[in-house]
């Protein structure tokens, strides 16, 4: 393009088309369509971001909730649910020819049962001791 001598200058050119003016309606519609799509895209990206954030927040919340309680306490709740389920199943089965077997007790529940039984026996022995003290001759 730096004025090479081999290049020949243009001698014939088509005349420019007559000036037709600006089509304002077409320009406005085109602008509106572009703005619309851009807004849709921005809204989609924003809502998409919020939605993905919600997923991660819920996962983090669930993990936090799963830190407590431990499996021992969970087992007692599961045992209660199993008792409920068995009661419903046994009640609906009218043709059973044998008695059902209860579910095994979770370890923590056995510990609770033992502690309560021990407390009951302590209370009874304390009561009988005090009754003995009262009824004993001086």
């Amino acid at each position, binding site marked *: 393009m730096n004025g090479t001598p081999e290049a020949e200058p243009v001698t014939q*050119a088509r005349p420019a088309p007559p000036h037709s003016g600006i089509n304002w309606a077409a320009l406005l519609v085109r602008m509106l369509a572009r703005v619309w799509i851009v807004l849709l895209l921005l809204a989609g990206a924003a809502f*998409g971001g919020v939605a993905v954030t919600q997923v991660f927040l819920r996962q983090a919340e669930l993990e936090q909730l799963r830190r407590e309680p431990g499996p021992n306490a969970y087992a007692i709740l599961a045992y209660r649910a199993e008792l409920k389920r068995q009661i419903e199943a046994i009640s609906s089965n009218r043709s059973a020819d044998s008695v059902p077997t209860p579910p095994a*007790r979770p370890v923590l529940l056995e510990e609770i049962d033992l502690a309560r039984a021990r407390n009951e026996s302590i209370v009874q022995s304390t009561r009988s001791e005090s009754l003995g003290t009262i009824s004993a001759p001086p």
Partner: protein
Amino acid sequence: MPENEEPISGLPEVLRDSNRPIIIYQGPPPGQLDPVTSNAIGLLAWLLLLTVCLVVIGIASWTVWNPGHDESRYSPIYADGQPRGLANRAEERRDINALTSGLVQYVERIQADNFDRRRTNETHALIDGADGVDALRREWDETCRRVRARVYDRRIGDLDTRLSEARRQLRLTEDPTQREALDASIAQLVLQRRDQGERRRTDSDPALRCTSAASTPACSLTSQDPWCNPEIARPDEFVPRRTP
């Protein structure tokens, strides 16, 4: 400018007067799409991006708010199985935590009362509440007794049916041999009926003896039941504690 040349509209005066070659391309440059195709592809690209955004929103919303339940996954709260949506699973876990909170402290306080040799006043809704384990164990025992009574009723009912049928045949039969056999059969059935009645009254049939739910043995360490070793049955339900 020569007079036989028409002026080229749109070109700057400097360029026209420079006597340099002027090349005017008709249409798009080589390798570039025409404006209509290019615009259409641009529009499709925008729509594709928008669709990706909508799909991401849909998947994320479904992951969080899915109302369904997974029947194959056990839930101590919902009979239909574990919820699918993260929000409902968090809600389920919140309920579990609320119901089981303070359980370990409860047993520790009873043990402390035992140590001090005093009557315990400790209660826990999950154990001795209206819908607690104690009430359900009593209900379970009652259900077992009803099943036992139903089995005895059925057995005695069968014997009564056979007995009445034998007596009816005895009334119709004239043959002494058959009457003798029927008499023996009736005597046998009467004995069986009496035996079943006695077993029922004294609960002496080991196969039909209800075991109290409160006196069953504790879970074994290897049991796969969720109420025995949930950390084995449901390993993803528990987050291991961080050791300091």
